[in-house]
């Protein structure tokens, strides 16, 4: 047994699932269908991410959903090589990023299908959904093919 396998026996190695609120259920339903959904305030027009119970701009309850283009640019990123939770050990190296969606909001994601050394701030990326289980598909992003 390797050291990592031995240590892994001490830790919870299950992949963490999103802790969902009632008003964000629709986001995850959309992700299951391959859609990146953003909340849209019908009162003030704000595009909202992450999903809220009320519009954080005007407190309106009149909130709908719009499908985003799935296109974004990398605002910043960091590639992990060590000191992550044991449950993410098998993913190393992986790159966490903040991406600015074409529609405005910024979100945390992973950058995939790209060598870490090739990832740059300002890079254009597009959403690709990563299956965690039958319920949750995380919106990851990959470079837009030139």
């Amino acid at each position, binding site marked *: 047994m390797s050291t990592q396998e031995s240590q892994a026996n001490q*830790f*919870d190695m299950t992949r963490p699932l999103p*802790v969902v609120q009632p008003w964000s259920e629709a986001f995850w339903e959309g992700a299951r269908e391959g859609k990146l959904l953003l909340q849209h305030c019908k009162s003030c027009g704000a595009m909202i991410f*992450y999903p809220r119970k009320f519009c954080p701009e005007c407190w309106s309850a009149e909130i709908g959903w719009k499908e985003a283009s799935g296109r974004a640019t990398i605002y*910043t990123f960091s590639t992990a*090589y060590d*000191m992550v*939770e044991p449950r993410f050990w098998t993913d190393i190296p992986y790159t*966490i990023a903040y991406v600015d969606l074409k529609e405005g909001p910024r979100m*945390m994601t992973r950058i995939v299908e790209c060598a870490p050394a090739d990832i740059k701030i300002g890079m254009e990326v597009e959403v690709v959904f990563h299956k965690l289980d039958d319920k949750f598909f995380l919106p990851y992003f990959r470079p837009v093919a030139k």
Partner: protein
Amino acid sequence: MKSGKIAIIGVGEVPTRTMPERSRWDIIYDTCMEAVRDSGLTKSDIGAVISTSPQAQPQLTAELAFGKLPEELGFENCRDTCVVNAGGAGTSNCLRLAEQYINSGVAEAVLVHHVTVHSTIAVPDLIAFFATAGVDLQWEYPFGSTYNIIMGLMANRYMHESGCTPLEMASVVTALRSWASRDPNSIFYGKAVPSPEKVLESAMLNTPLHKRESNILADGGCAMVVVSAERARKMGKPAAYKLGESVRYFSATPMMRNFEKMVYGLRDTAKEAIAEAGITKEDVNIWNVYLAYPLAHPIMAEALEIAPFGQGGKYFLDGRMSFGGDIPWSTIGEAPGRGHTGSGVSSAVYVETARQLMGRAGERQVPNCSYVYQNTSGGSGFNNIATIWGREPK
């Protein structure tokens, strides 16, 4: 905001080390009794006790929150006690509450303290705590984010915008360790100070953060006795007087953080605290910056307008913030030099501010220290509380 009505008149501290042989209550006894004795008061004078929340230690948090400390130490005239939690901004809030207790007549002397013993917490529990504290469980945690990664995200963006080099970033560790090596209460006391090149030789944790740019979890504790500025002045002993304060909230979730809003907030809180103190930036003798990671220090140096934009890292590389430099900065080495005791670092930096103003900082003593800038910041940077402390009342 109106500050300037309280003073720290006594401090107590144990060295920050890995010391599983010491229980939390063992450290509480020693630090609190030392602070009371140092203040020149007696235990009968302590009218309230406020604890900075010990993160990742739920049993101790409950014991303190439910009033065990005044009973344990025999503070027979204690009128109230509580735990305050704002993460790394906790101690600033303890001092604010102490100010409220004193100004409203609840207490004339307030004991503020903190203790953390990381070394006896089971590793899986420690990992679980630090993995989920300060990140969103729906929109950040499932992607595999960590505190280190949050700092990496911030640092990469800053380096992209400013041109700050990895060597300049690494030099922050050199500066902080130069102070810590001269602080008997720091975990790196007496240890060799790594060069920036040596820092960069250490393993990459996550870009651009190297192992030596991260923190060592440690055990420690400290305490302070706070009274009204008027009472401190009448006592006629060296003290640290609170002269000014300003605060900004940014956002809880790092993903939502507006970088400009944060930088402007760091700048504006400093200006407002300095203005309230009735001094100028040039009067500040020590910038006792607390940010928990070295990567944020060049950003702070620029936000404080000590270094021009893009030059923050260069100032560290040039040794200006190091021991012996012309800009005394984080004189216990902050969390990377002192050792990370959770929210306890925010207590330790205030104890250092008091020591410097009392003229009792030993080898680290900044000559003629009259004014200290002291900030704290909570969570993964949800706010910044800037304060100015002086050795004389307003």
